[in-house]
């Protein structure tokens, strides 16, 4: 049992920290997310240059030989700076699908583009009627010669406006919510029949609604085995949850620090408000919520390699913890900052909004609680 980071991991954290301290201050971010683009491709290029996009890939795939812990470190620091660039979608999720389910050919063809920063990916899985159920799919992929024809609609595809490629889940057989019959495809966003409508999200990102109308893909677009995609999808979304948990702890850390700092300096009735016992205890509860979230984040990241049941419990458990803690810490950080906490000018509201959306991503507390209690 060991909870320490290797030297390389500490180095990685330092690299990310100094880059973000230098290039990702709050005001810069605020301006960037209001531009038409909404992100900085040049920042993405810097991530690539510094090797961040290579961190979790094995050396034989051209990566730096890291794994979940490296994702965790990067995502925690990204959370602290509210980074909007699609590391989660591209490296953790698309990278994860290719690493865990891709053929050697797919890996060799596509991972270099991720590592090099040339290709940005998005994950088109959710559908309006499906809510958080990964298997509730009406999008279909029909066998068509050696390839497939995809038809369907995907909702709230985060980062899609910036992406060139999509991971798309579709039903190749079975009924709407069957566990069997689900397959995973790689689709070029520029392919004929793919149409997108983009819009901003409340946490300063971008998303698209995507329609697939007779989109033809080749046999090489299929990741893994036809009809057996769900276990792979579950594994990768759990990896995404592990990364999101780290991002959430980064947000909470900043909120807690900011709140304690604010309460030490802000005076009311002649004393710093941090002297009021009720606020002190509130901040202690925020601190404990954060610490418990860090613990669950460690746990899920250390258990991603375990069997399905254990991994599910760790991921669902972590998502519940950060969902509840994120809500509490976010709400109270706003409350303790008073009116200032409500403004767009201060970073507090932005962390709060991001934490709120993290709870929604891949299923909120209720959904994950049910998933936890149903896991064997």
């Amino acid at each position, binding site marked *: 049992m060991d909870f320490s980071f290797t030297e390389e991991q500490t180095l990685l954290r330092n690299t990310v920290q100094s880059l973000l301290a230098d290039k990702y201050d709050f005001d810069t971010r605020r301006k960037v997310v209001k531009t038409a683009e909404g992100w900085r491709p040049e920042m993405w290029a810097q991530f690539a240059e510094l090797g961040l996009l290579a961190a979790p890939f094995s050396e034989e795939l051209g990566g730096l030989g890291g794994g979940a812990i490296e994702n965790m470190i990067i995502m925690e620091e990204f959370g602290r700076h509210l980074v909007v660039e699609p590391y989660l979608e591209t490296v953790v999720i698309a990278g994860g699908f290719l690493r865990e389910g891709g053929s050697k050919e797919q890996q060799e063809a596509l991972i270099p583009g991720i590592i090099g920063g040339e290709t940005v990916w998005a994950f088109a899985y*959710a559908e*309006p*009627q499906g*809510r*958080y*159920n990964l298997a*509730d799919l009406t999008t279909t992929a029909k066998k068509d010669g050696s390839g497939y024809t995809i038809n369907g609609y995907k*909702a*709230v595809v*985060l980062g899609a406006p910036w992406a060139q490629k999509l991971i798309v889940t579709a039903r190749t057989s079975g009924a*709407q*919510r069957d566990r069997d019959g689900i397959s995973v495809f790689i689709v070029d966003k520029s392919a004929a029949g793919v149409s997108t*409508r*983009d*819009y*901003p*999200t*409340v*946490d300063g*990102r971008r*998303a698209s*609604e995507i329609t697939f109308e007779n989109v033809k893909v080749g046999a090489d677009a299929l990741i893994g085995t036809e009809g057996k995609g769900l276990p792979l999808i579950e594994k990768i979304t759990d990896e995404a949850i592990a990364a999101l948990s780290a991002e959430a702890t980064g947000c909470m850390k900043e909120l807690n620090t900011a709140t304690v700092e604010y309460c030490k300096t*802000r*005076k*009311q*009735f*002649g004393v710093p408000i941090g002297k*009021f016992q*009720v*606020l002190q205890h509130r901040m202690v509860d925020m601190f404990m919520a954060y610490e418990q979230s860090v613990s669950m984040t460690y746990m899920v990241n250390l258990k991603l390699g375990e069997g399905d049941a254990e991994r599910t419990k760790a991921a669902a458990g972590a998502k519940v913890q950060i969902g509840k803690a994120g809500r509490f810490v976010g*709400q109270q950080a*706003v*409350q303790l900052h*008073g*009116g200032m*906490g*409500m*403004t*767009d*000018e201060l970073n507090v*509201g*932005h962390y*709060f*909004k991001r934490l*709120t*959306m993290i709870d*929604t991503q891949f299923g*909120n507390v*209720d959904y994950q*609680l*049910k998933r936890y209690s149903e896991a064997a």
Partner: protein
Amino acid sequence: MDMSFSPEELAFRDEVREFIANNYPQELKGGRRTRGEMSKEDILKWHRILYKKGWVVPHWPVEYGGTGWTITQRYIWNEENARAETSPLLPFGLSMVGPVIYTFGNEEQKKRFLPGILSADDWWCQGYSEPGSGSDLASLRTRAVREGDHYIVNGGKTWTTLAQFADWMFCLVRTDPNAKAQEGISFLLIDMKTPGITVRPIITMDGSHEVNEVFLEDVKVPVENLIGEENKGWTYAKFLLGNERSGIAGVARSKKAIERLKKIADAELVDGEPLMKTDEFARKVAELEIDLSALEVTELRTLAAESKGRGPGPEASILKIKGTEIQQRITELTMEAVGNYAFVQAPRMEVTGNEFLPGPDYAPGVSQDYFNMRKTSIYGGSNEIQHNIIAKMVLGL
């Protein structure tokens, strides 16, 4: 003890209901736009209709324009407005400065200001909070110095709701800098067109422009705009805050908002079944409804005590605390209900009508409503301050 309405009260309810149905502007129907998204004229439309009818200030004494309704009739009036989702009237003139003027103002002031409040020809805003003052209102630093028959006001106010439209501001200023915190404060009425006043928008995290900073630089205010006595403003300020809290439970509107939440949760699916039919969500809504039922009776009990000359008193702080908790929780569950579409950012200002808003009609903006409602436990005396008030005034701690 009895919770039912008399035949007369039922008749009154029908009258009110019919009046609203026939007179509420068609184009405003549908409810729940935030004021940040409405034009000045839209905000005032309903007010002007009620003014014509004579129903704009049911809570005022009859001599100043009140309707003379009983507590129960006023309760029915509020219920019916919530039921029809009419847009709430602005409180700044009607519930805040108006009662201060008719209670503490002189005859001149009553004649000068009350008509404009009633007709909505004057738009009022509230100059209470200052940067740095927060819940400690009495720490305000805006100075007013008497020079001849004017005060010269310097300083600044913040969180000034809808000041961008305001004609007048009622304002707390420090007239005696040597007095202790709550003394030496005066209550001034300031014409917003006076030179030296600058209004700067504050955008809140949901993207709305509801509040502002107001800068005051050598602003000349005639002494006849002083309410009551110089240095006694704290008394009037407290009176106003007491009035402000009494309507804040928002029970009738919360009922309507829960109805809407339930409709959304009926439309949203979980594994093909309505979300509203899932055990967990149904329970959360039930808890909310029960909290609201209890609060409704608590408010009625407070009103009943009031009509017998007791209260409102510090018990009104319960209404503020529970009322805002419930309002916040409703927006939270509504956001939860829409699932992934909670991500959608709806424009709050400068709506062009051409924005792409994905998902079902009810979804865009629900997260922003949730973010926006966090303010309710902060403003009007934060919920922590309300706890302090109950601890001190009710429990004697």
